[in-house]
């Protein structure tokens, strides 16, 4: 394209009929297909308005009601879309190429919405902490802006303030997570990444107890997250430079060399492999940061430990689902032409992630950090399924994500129950003999740990089996061997916690187990139920994931 022709793209609207700017058509938006996301965003905006106009006393109930209704309505919309065949035969691309509505997107959106609903119950729990000045309090700071330990904080506690903003923040994060795995162009991907991250940074800073630690976690998460998203954005810039387009489909065509129309500029950049390789590496790096894969896992233990435990549970479960969805789509839709380049790299990342997560977890003494390293190891197991590059790979990863997210959120919900005078008792030594003092809670936690370890008859086993089977059939047998070895290492520390709970003497000054409201009971109950059902009778859900395992392009 000549310099003058290019120039005319953005100078003076000497509006002739041939002027490309004059010809921009109104975008066609498929509101029905985008309904799940739109419902959540609408409810989040209403939640912000509720913060401004609803009296303080009834805000909690209003927000709670609004969020529950929105999440259920959005889930119903996802089910309706899936039942209408949008996951299979009618899969397509909506919103002018920005959002894909296909099997994996709907499956992951459904999972995220259910996880968010369960997470919301743990957010809303108000019976664990003792009442402060006659007011029931939740896990979040009375007033986040008040300096910890200051007089203004005491005043806020005395006045019975609660941070009900957590509900809209949760909904905004969920909205980002819904778009993230469905994004079909790089701009949507980036915006969704930020929309899901920013509320999570804030939520991390809002703990009621151990506020310094919570703020520190938020700063670390924020700085590292912003650093990683800058790399993602630069990767996007380079990929855009390589392909001259943001759309996944077009970039994939350019990578394959099957693009129908080659402009002179595109012909110049297409041959530049440095743009493509560096761009995809930076983009994938940003996504690996979000899933917490080694070597981009440094933030995980600190953030999981410092954040309020309900937030940790939600974040650990839902972010992983969304980020793996986006990673799958990038690798399977945009970069299949590069798979001989990215597969060896992902092999390395998966091996290091599985081993490092499992080995470092052994040395941990804090239950939240232990679960954080366990989540790193699980990211490695899921990556093994990603590497398979077969339809079975996609569906096994979908199944694993659904199974894993409920186990995680249930496990963190149990962590909120075990408390002493300083709030949650997260040090492992305090968990000694928990099984004698409160057998039910310890037994439930043991179920979750067995699922993490991948013991048969739990969802962890079916998930791991599916992922490793797909990886082995996809030609990654050595990876499976390493995966099984690191599962064995990981099983050691899960079993150690179980032994600690059931076979050691309770300490006299040990923690007590708080009796939660039906909210947390529901969350834990759902976690156990999903863990057992997906472990005993996984076939229906495996079939569902199998049907959902085809990306639209």
């Amino acid at each position, binding site marked *: 394209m000549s310099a003058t022709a290019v120039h005319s793209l953005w100078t003076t609207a000497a509006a002739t009929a041939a002027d490309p700017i004059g010809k921009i058509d109104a975008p066609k938006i498929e509101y029905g297909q985008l309904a799940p996301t739109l419902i959540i965003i609408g409810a989040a905006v209403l939640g912000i308005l509720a913060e401004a106009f609803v009296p303080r006393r009834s805000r909690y109930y209003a927000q709670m009601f609004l969020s529950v209704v929105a999440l259920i309505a959005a889930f119903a919309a996802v089910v309706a879309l899936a039942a209408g065949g949008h996951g299979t035969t009618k899969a397509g691309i909506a919103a002018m190429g920005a959002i894909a509505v296909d099997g994996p997107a709907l499956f992951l959106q459904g999972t995220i919405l259910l996880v968010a609903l369960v997470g919301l119950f743990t957010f809303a729990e108000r019976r664990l902490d003792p009442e402060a000045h006659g007011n029931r309090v939740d896990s979040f700071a009375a007033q986040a802006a008040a300096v910890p330990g200051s007089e203004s904080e005491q005043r806020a506690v005395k006045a019975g303030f609660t941070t009900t903003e957590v509900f809209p923040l949760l909904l905004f994060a969920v909205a980002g997570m819904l778009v993230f795995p469905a994004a079909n162009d790089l701009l949507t991907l980036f915006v969704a990444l930020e929309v899901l991250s*920013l509320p999570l940074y804030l939520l991390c800073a809002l703990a009621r107890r151990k506020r310094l630690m919570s703020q520190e976690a938020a700063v670390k998460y924020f700085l590292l997250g912003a650093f990683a998203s800058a790399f993602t954005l630069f990767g996007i810039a380079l990929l855009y430079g390589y392909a001259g387009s943001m759309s996944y489909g077009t970039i994939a065509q350019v990578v394959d060399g099957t693009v129908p129309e080659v402009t002179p500029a595109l012909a110049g950049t297409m041959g530049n492999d440095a743009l493509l390789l560096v761009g995809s590496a930076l983009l994938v790096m940003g996504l690996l940061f979000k899933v917490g894969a080694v070597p981009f896992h440094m933030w995980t233990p600190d953030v999981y430990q410092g954040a309020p435990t309900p937030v940790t549970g939600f974040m650990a479960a839902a972010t992983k689902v969304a980020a793996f969805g986006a990673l799958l789509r990038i690798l399977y839709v945009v970069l299949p032409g590069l798979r001989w380049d990215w597969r060896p790299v992902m092999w390395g990342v998966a091996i290091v992630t599985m081993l490092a997560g499992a080995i470092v977890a052994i040395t941990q003494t804090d239950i939240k950090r232990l679960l954080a390293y366990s989540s790193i190891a699980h990211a490695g197991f899921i990556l093994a399924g990603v590497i398979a590059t077969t339809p079975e790979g996609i569906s096994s990863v979908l199944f694993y994500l659904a199974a894993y997210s409920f186990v995680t959120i249930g496990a963190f919900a149990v962590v909120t129950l075990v408390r002493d005078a300083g709030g949650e008792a997260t040090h492992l030594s305090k968990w000694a003999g928990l099984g004698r003092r409160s057998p039910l809670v310890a037994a439930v936690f043991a179920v979750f740990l067995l699922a993490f370890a991948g013991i048969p008859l739990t969802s962890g086993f079916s998930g791991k089996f599916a992922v490793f089977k797909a990886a082995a059939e996809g030609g990654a047998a050595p990876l499976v061997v390493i995966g099984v070895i690191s599962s064995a290492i990981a099983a050691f520390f899960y079993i150690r916690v179980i032994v600690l709970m059931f076979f050691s003497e309770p300490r006299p000054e040990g923690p007590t187990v708080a009796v939660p409201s039906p909210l947390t009971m529901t969350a834990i109950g759902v976690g156990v139920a999903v863990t057992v059902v997906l472990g005993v009778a996984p076939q229906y859900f495996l079939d569902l994931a199998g049907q959902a395992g085809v990306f639209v392009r």
Partner: protein
Amino acid sequence: MNPVNYLYLAALLFTIGATGVLIRRNAIVVFMCVELMLNACNLAFVAFSRLHGNLDGQIIAFFTMVVAAAEVVVGLAIIVSLFRSRHSASVDDASLMKL
């Protein structure tokens, strides 16, 4: 002028930003370096937009600015709350949690 030169400049700015994030110790300065990285991305987007003769890159630059503004709001809120409770914005001082 050859748009490729702008890309070199963008890469240079990005590297300066990334180096700054790694070596500076004040959370605010670290954050400013992240912003520099985002602006380097913007420059790259606009340069590529010119190179390819389509407007996508320029549209993205606007989105990046909005996202960066939102990030400033969230980031400064977090950093200021950390500063008020510790009287220090150094990322080295924030080390309650260790391996």
